[in-house]
Structure formats: C-alpha cells, structure tokens
C-alpha cells in the first residue's frame, strides 16, 4: 500500500530554489535510503515533508496515506504518523526530557483515540522502550538534549521514534557524529522498530549505516532531484566510484 507519494515537489528557502521536482514513492514495509552530496537537497526534502516553517513549497504535491500533506500543519503531520529524527537535535533548557516525552506521547495517543498515560504508567513504558537504544534512564531526568553528547542526542531521537510509533520515520543523517558502537546501537534500535506497517527513510552521506540498516531502495539526489534509484548495491557503487559519474548523467 502506498504510504507516501511525492510528485514533482519543488521548494525554496529564502527565495533560493532547492528542490526542483522530486518524485518518490514509498510503501509500508519498505526501507529507503536517500544519498547525495552536501547541498543536493536531501535534508531539505526531510524538512519540507515535516513542515519546517523556513521552507516554502513552490510546486508539486505530496500525498501521505492518500491525504494532501501540505494541508496539514506540522503538528498534524506528526499526529498522522510522520516522524523526523533531527540531524541536529535542539536543546530545551529547563524542560525535563521525561515530561517532554510524555507530552509528545500523550498528544499522539490522544489523536489516535487512545488513553493518555499518567506519569507513573508512562515511566514504566519509557523505561521499557529506552532499552531499545541502550540509553541510561538518568537521561530522562535531564533537560531535553541539554549537555547530551552527539551520540546521546541521536539515541534520544530514536527513543522518541520508539515511543511515538510512526508510520513513516525519516532519519536525517542519524549516523553523522556517531562512533561505530553508537552507530550499531542506533541501527539495532531502528531495526527492532521495523515492521510491515511502517516505512523508514534514511538520509545519509555514507554507505556504512546501510551495512546495519539494509535498504530496499537507494536514491541519489543531485541539484534538487532524484537522479538515480537502485537497490542496496547502488550504495556500494557510490562508495567505490563517488558521485561524479551520476552528476554527469544529471
């Protein structure tokens, strides 16, 4: 079943055109990787889908579960099951991580017609889910991302994914800044959350993440378009040959 359909998507930031006609289809149960050089538009695509206010959609359309995504404000997109793991998770001083996680969880639950959890019930749940990313529960009592290392921030993102149970999770350079152990832990976490009901999009520069989370499709972006789509072997080929041969094609 089609989860996401992107047709001719164009977008700009501060008047500069970044996406110049992106086409992409994602079905439930699939894992996609989007690769490309800096400035090719990968991260912009993630942010435009999630509704970041700095980006303007200038053309094309996106359907999420058959629904026009751009009719929904960012918080509604999250409530219908679109999740973005941030490349640079932001710090929120004074706001406890567990209070933030619980508010997010209860908001999403409520929108799904399910009951909210009180702090004690939620504490049980979060202590169970936190094992997915092998994170120290002490991080629940700290302010959101404040003073977290790069790796801890990324694990905290995947913890949020584990709690919110999205239909489509976009991981924006989740591998950047991770050492090999942290990468393995985060990848294991993501793999444990894969199912036939959800889909995952990984935005990455590097092949190494794809050794751990094996994609069904690999797309290469250049100059705001997807210029080539293949299976996992395409990533290996890119690792070997670089991007130049594709740029020539574009």
């Amino acid at each position: 079943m089609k989860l996401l359909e992107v047709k001719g998507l164009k977008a700009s930031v501060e008047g500069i055109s970044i996406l110049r006609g992106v086409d992409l289809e994602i079905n439930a149960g699939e894992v996609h990787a989007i690769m490309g050089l800096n400035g090719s538009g990968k991260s912009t695509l993630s942010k435009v889908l999630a509704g970041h206010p700095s980006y303007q959609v200038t053309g094309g359309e996106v359907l999420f579960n058959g629904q026009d995504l751009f009719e929904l404000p960012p918080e509604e997109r999250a409530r219908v099951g679109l999740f973005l793991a941030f490349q640079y998770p932001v710090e929120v001083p004074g706001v406890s991580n567990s209070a933030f996680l619980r508010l997010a969880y209860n908001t999403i639950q409520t929108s799904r017609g399910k009951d909210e959890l009180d702090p004690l019930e939620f504490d049980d749940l979060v202590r169970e889910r936190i094992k997915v990313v092998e994170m120290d529960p002490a991080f629940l009592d700290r302010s959101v991302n404040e003073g977290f290392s790069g790796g801890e921030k990324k694990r905290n993102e995947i913890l949020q994914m584990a709690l919110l149970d999205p239909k489509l999770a976009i991981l924006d350079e989740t591998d950047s800044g991770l050492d090999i152990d942290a990468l393995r832990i985060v990848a294991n976490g993501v793999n444990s959350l894969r199912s036939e009901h959800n889909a995952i999009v990984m935005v990455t520069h590097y092949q190494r993440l794809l050794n751990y989370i094996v994609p069904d499709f690999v797309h290469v972006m250049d100059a705001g378009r997807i210029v080539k789509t293949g299976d996992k072997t395409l990533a290996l080929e890119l690792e070997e040959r670089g991007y130049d041969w594709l740029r020539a094609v574009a």
Partner: protein
Amino acid sequence: MNTTLQQWVDQPYRHGFVTDIETEIVPKGLNESVIRMISAKKDEPEWLLDFRLASYRRWLTMEVPSWAKVSHPPIDFQEIIYFAQPKPKKQLDSMDEVDPELRKTFEKLGVPLHEQKVMAGVAVDVIFDSVSVTTTYKSKLAEVGIIFCSLSEAVREYPELVKQYLGSVVPASDNFYAALNSAVFTEGSFCFIPKGTKCPMDLSTYFRINTEGSGQFERTLIIAEEGASVSYLEGCTAPRFDTNQLHAAVVELVALDYAEIKYSTVQNWYAGDENGVGGIYNFVTKRGMCRGVHSKISWTQVETGSAITWKYPSCILLGEGSVGEFYSVALTNHRQQADTGTKMVHVGRHTKSTIVSKGISAGRSDNGYRGLVKILPHATGARNYSQCDSMLIGEACRANTYPTVEVRNETAIVEHEASTSKIGEDQMFLFAQRGIGQEEAISMIINGFCRDVFMHLPLEFAVEATKLLGLKLEGSVG
C-alpha cells in the same frame, strides 16, 4: 512560526473590567490639606499625621529618580487622586455584608471572600483602591497570637507596634517614591508573628485598583519575631484605562533572630495596550531587614503586568549568618518596560545571598535586570551567588543586565553567571514535529526557563503563575 509568537504576545488582559460602585474620593492633587484630609478620614493619631507631613515636606525637596532605564512623560502629581474608597453602606459585621458588587468583582478575579471557599486555607486581606475590604481567618490566627489585618486597623489596635517598625526599614528619605508613599499611603497589610510561632497558613493580600485617575499607595509591614516564620503572598490587578496610573507601594519586612519570612508576588497590573497606551506605573520599594542572627528573608516575584516596573526587592543582611534570597521572573511584551532586580547588602559575618533572575522579553518591550551586591568591611565569610538569564521572543525586544558588585572584605566569595537565549524556530519545530501544539510548546519552554524560580513559589501560587502564563497563551492560535 513568528506569527504564533506574535499572537502569543498579543494576549488580551483578563482583569481589565471596572466595577460600577459608588466611590468616595478626595479631590485630586496633593498638598498638606489633602494629607490632613486622608489622615482625618482614617481617624489617625497625631504621630502618624506628623509622620506623613514630615515625609511630604521631605518629598517636596526630592527629585524624580532618573537612573533607571525607563522612559515616560513627566508625571503630574497634582492630577492624581490620592484617596478613593467604595462608599461604605454600614459597618461590616461579617463577610456576608460585603457589598455584592465588590464580592462579584473578587469572585470574577478568583479571590473568594468567603473563608470556606478559600483554597487550601490561605488567609486573605483584600484591598480595593484605598481601603481594605475584608481580612479572612483573622480570629483563627489570633488564637496563636498572630496579628494579620489591614494597616489602618493595626494603627488603631496596635499603635505601639506600628510606631516601632513603620519606616524602620524604608525611611521616608530613602527615595522619591518612598517619601511620596510615606506621605499619602492609604492602606496595606500588617502581619506580626510573635516569638517562636510558625504561621499555620499562608497569608495573602490581594490588591485591586478600580477608580480611574487614582493612585494606589499601599504600605505593608511584616514582622517576624525570634524564631517565627511566615509565608506571605501578594497578587494585584487593575482595570484597563487609557491613562497611566501610579502605584507606589512600600513593603517593609523585619526578621529577628532565627526568624524566616518568605514573600511571594504575582504582579499582573494592567500593562497598557499594544501601543503602550495606559497601564500602571509600578514604582515600588520593597526591602527586608534580616536584623537577627541566622534570620532569613526570601523574595520570589513573578512580574507580568504594568506599563513600567521599577522595583528592587532587597535584603539588608545585618545579623550574623543571615540569608537573603531573590527569585524573579519578569515577563514584558508590547511596549512594557521593566527595570527590576535586587540589592543584597552584606553587613554581618557569614551572611549569604542568592539571586536568580529570569527575564522574558517579547514585542517591543524593554526588560532589564539591575542588581547590587555589596559586601561591607565587617562581612567576613560573606557569600553571594547570582544568576541572570534572559530570553528573547521576536526581533524587536531588548534585554539588559546591569549587575554591580562592591566587595570590601577580602574573604568574601561572589559569583555571577549570565546567559541570553531565544525561543528559536528550531525549538518550536521540534515540539510541532512531536505532535505538540504551539501554545503548549511555548508554555512548556517558558515554564522550563522559569523553573528555578517557580520551584520557590508556594504550591498554590506556582499553579497560579503557570496558569497566568497559560492564560496568556489561551486562544492565541487560529
């Protein structure tokens, strides 16, 4: 996203209504005969009239202070009404006889005048324009020897106590507005906690300005004797008028040996409209004297209202080992101006002070922290820790910090930390991406920023402060 922040900034004021009630006023303007008239109306003893007149004469020689970073057209002190009171129908014997219009007013403000309806047993003194309407739980407190009443009543019933302490912490000569207050103060609360007594409930005063053109000049005096302790709360609101109104209060606290006074304020005077028309000029002198050894005075304030706030709740740490604390949240938006902070004067040995100030500026407002930490030569082993954080919302507001540290004893340890941050688009986007609505997001971010201060508020007040920020958010989207 910026439009959301803008909408949040443009919150309507909820307490801007006027109560239609017959009011008795003294004609506007200030001279000795007005002061004599106020004193006569209150049936005051000679010594108090003398105190007022001496203060007035002193005031005439003083200049309007100009050092604060606030600007306003000159105040015409002859255009102010110095005394206004709802016309009394007859002497009140019980709460049930309070004028129904007044009772409705306070119910609307969430301040019930019936003791049985008062949440969590907080005793309340209710002040409407220049007079005290009622004080709850008075007799229950009297059982343990605590005096809690309006200042006028204290003058009548306990003249020796008032005479002993009035002006002992803030003398009339202290500053221009303190002198003005000493000349014309009309009402306020008086609390006296006798030796060894721990006040069994929070004491609270609710101030309401109602009459257009009137000023409010209240005077609060709190005394905690040896080993006594009390937690006191203060709330304030005013109707929406196009003219500026002056509120020049004086609060004096005295703590004897091992006594502890905790003074909490949620200030929500009318702030003026988005163009800065109208609103209260809140020019207040608050000071506590830690006179006894190991005494402690703690100020916690949440300042969200007033067109201009000029206020520095301070502590004189006289007794050896005494402790002063100041926890403040000041939120300004539109054209509001706040120049607020504290003074900690370390006189005694091993005195300690803590300052935590959180400023939130939005709109085109100006929000400044001004602080003085002064360690005098005899204050061996004195310690101070100060932390000043500013948060900016939008592009047109300003935050300033003016800390002054004067150390004259080399054993003192003084620390100062400061930070400035912005509610960024990226923080808001994080909350949105997790399904959280904009109002809840702003509320959570602001409450997180203020947490170090809110945790020092008594529980009911912490809830009210959070709710106040919440009210400012309500209906801000859509």
